[in-house]
């Protein structure tokens, strides 16, 4: 990225206008680049109807067995209290699989993703944070039914009484593409029509039960009424069909959202603090019983969702025992955990356990393992990432980048894509080539080269001695 020299303005041979335009362009590009997440290219699990994994599909590459397993898990989502552990080395697509599952579930199924370390906070207890995460992953589907009158205003006629005071009366003519009718207006309706500044040519809906008027916009047929319009003027089609419609809207809310609304004691205060803090268990019990009541009356459906806990080895022994218990309740979501640890210490204890997860919890889990990507797969992923980030890359450069990915890590080589693209644009090239890759490879160290560098020059870094003395101090204490 080219920067303005300090204290001066950026001069461009193309003249002022061109340089401004280019700068605007550059600014926009940067924000866009920042907005692409590491797993933004994933659209689903890439399975066919028979749950077989396609080699490359929906942004997913390789990991066929793990993806097939994930597909099976999605099928059994109806059964409460299932838990899955995705285990594999760093950069083998654990989070990608979890994201793919979330995408495959569709927008209606709640999906909560947290990192293991997120639950350690001063504001609320560990178990509270976990409970909230659980309840965020359970949806409740409810239906709202309203009778509305929807149409284009043909005419409003308001008669003022001759004396100047007293009740006003009026008429409102509404139409759809199919019909037209006249409504008599009372005092109340006239007031709200005036308040909403409804005029002929507007498309309005009137809620029949409450009489609330909503302006949807102006009719397309009236688009030429004025030469100049306010910026908010929205043009909509004249509604079709009946004037008085029954509108049914299905909402899916999570249990946690209902909790939050009901635990607000002093209304607006909670709105500003943002964080809701802890929720009383009585509130939760009340809500559980209310939801159970709705279910009996056929008013609500429970939508079990998915709770994904990344870096699950960061949880401590108390959290694990909580999870054990929470999985047994009838409103438990599918729990997916991911870890990149092998046999390691369970946090909060001195005991070693596979994946840093206690054996009793492991026993309840279905374990899916991911394997390191092969060269071909790495190449494919890099290619997908290039497309996702709008980077043109030559085949040779891609091969070089793949080699880098094999020798260092997939993450590092993905990072290089954006950097190489910027270098390429700096030299006004259209396609990233091998030289660009070489340049960024020399500019940015990967983990092993950085370690190498530190080993060589450790003595010259700041606080080196202090570091040693702290070590000595620690030894004194123990």
């Amino acid at each position, binding site marked *: 990225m080219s920067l303005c020299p300090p204290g001066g303005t950026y001069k461009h041979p193309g003249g002022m206008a061109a340089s401004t335009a280019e700068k605007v362009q550059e600014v926009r590009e940067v924000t866009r680049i920042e907005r692409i997440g590491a797993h933004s290219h994933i659209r689903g699990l890439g399975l066919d109807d028979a749950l077989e994994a396609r080699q490359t599909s929906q942004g997913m590459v390789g990991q066929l067995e793990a993806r097939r397993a994930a597909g099976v898990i999605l099928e059994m989502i109806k059964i409460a209290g299932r838990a899955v552990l995705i285990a594999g080395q760093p950069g083998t697509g654990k989070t990608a699989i979890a994201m793919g599952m979330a995408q495959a579930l569709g927008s*209606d199924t709640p999906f909560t993703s947290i990192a293991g370390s997120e639950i350690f906070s001063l504001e609320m207890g560990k178990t509270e944070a976990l409970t909230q995460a659980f309840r965020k992953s359970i949806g409740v*589907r*409810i*239906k*709202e*039914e309203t009778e509305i009158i929807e149409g284009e205003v043909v005419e409003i006629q308001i008669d003022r009484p001759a004396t100047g005071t007293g009740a006003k009366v009026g008429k409102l003519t509404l139409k759809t593409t*199919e*019909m037209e*009718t*006249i409504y*008599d207006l009372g005092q109340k309706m006239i007031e709200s029509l005036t308040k909403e500044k409804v005029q002929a040519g507007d498309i309005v809906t009137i809620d029949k*039960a409450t009489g609330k008027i909503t302006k949807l916009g102006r009719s397309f047929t009236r688009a030429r009424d004025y030469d100049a319009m306010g910026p908010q003027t929205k043009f909509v089609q004249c509604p079709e*069909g*009946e*004037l*008085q419609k*029954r509108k*049914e809207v*299905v*909402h*899916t*809310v999570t249990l946690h*959202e*209902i909790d*939050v*609304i009901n635990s607000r004691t002093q209304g607006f205060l909670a709105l500003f603090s943002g964080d809701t803090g802890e929720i009383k268990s009585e509130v939760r019990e009340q809500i559980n019983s209310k939801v159970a009541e*709705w279910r009996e*009356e*056929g*008013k*609500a*459906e429970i939508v079990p969702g998915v709770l994904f806990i990344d870096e699950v080895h960061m949880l401590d022994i108390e959290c694990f025992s909580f999870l054990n218990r929470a999985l047994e309740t009838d409103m438990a979501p599918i729990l997916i955990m991911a870890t990149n640890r092998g046999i390691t210490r369970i946090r909060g204890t001195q005991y070693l356990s596979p994946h840093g997860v206690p054996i009793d919890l492991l026993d309840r889990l279905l374990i899916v393992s991911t394997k390191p990507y092969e060269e071909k797969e790495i190449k494919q992923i890099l290619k997908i990432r290039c497309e996702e980030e709008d980077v043109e890359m030559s085949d040779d450069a891609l091969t070089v980048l793949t080699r880098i990915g094999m020798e260092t890590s997939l993450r590092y080589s993905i990072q290089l894509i954006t950097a190489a693209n910027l270098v390429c644009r700096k030299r006004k090239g259209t396609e990233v080539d091998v030289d660009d890759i070489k340049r960024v490879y020399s500019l940015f160290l990967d983990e092993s080269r950085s370690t190498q560098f530190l080993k060589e020059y450790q003595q010259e870094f700041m606080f080196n001695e202090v570091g040693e003395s702290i070590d000595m101090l620690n030894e004194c204490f123990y």
Partner: protein
Amino acid sequence: MQTDSGDMSRVVEHLAQVEGVAEDILADKQKLIDLDRRRNKTREAMRILQKDKTEEKKWICFGNMFIKVEKKKASRLLEHDFDEIEKEMSKTRTELKPKVNQLRDLEHKEEAKGFNLNPLSDSEMKAVKDLL
């Protein structure tokens, strides 16, 4: 060749079924529109009778015949009509749902979610409204 024509006829049969159900749904929708138009006309007539302060007999058009009836009787007839239309509309609406589900099933689409739920009452909805 034999299997081909067998497949063919199955496809045609399936499409015919889909079209049949879709046609039915469209007919019902049109019916709802026609009913609503009649409902609005009836409502307008009732309003006019209500506002009228005189006590004479009124001309009313039933079908394509004008009949002169007493005001009270006229408004009773209209009210009866209005209730009938409302009933018919809600019946048509409830019948429409299984048909739409059947169509989705034939088209191998997923069942519409939450389609068969009972609506929340107004007060319940108001409580939930805050979070929507």
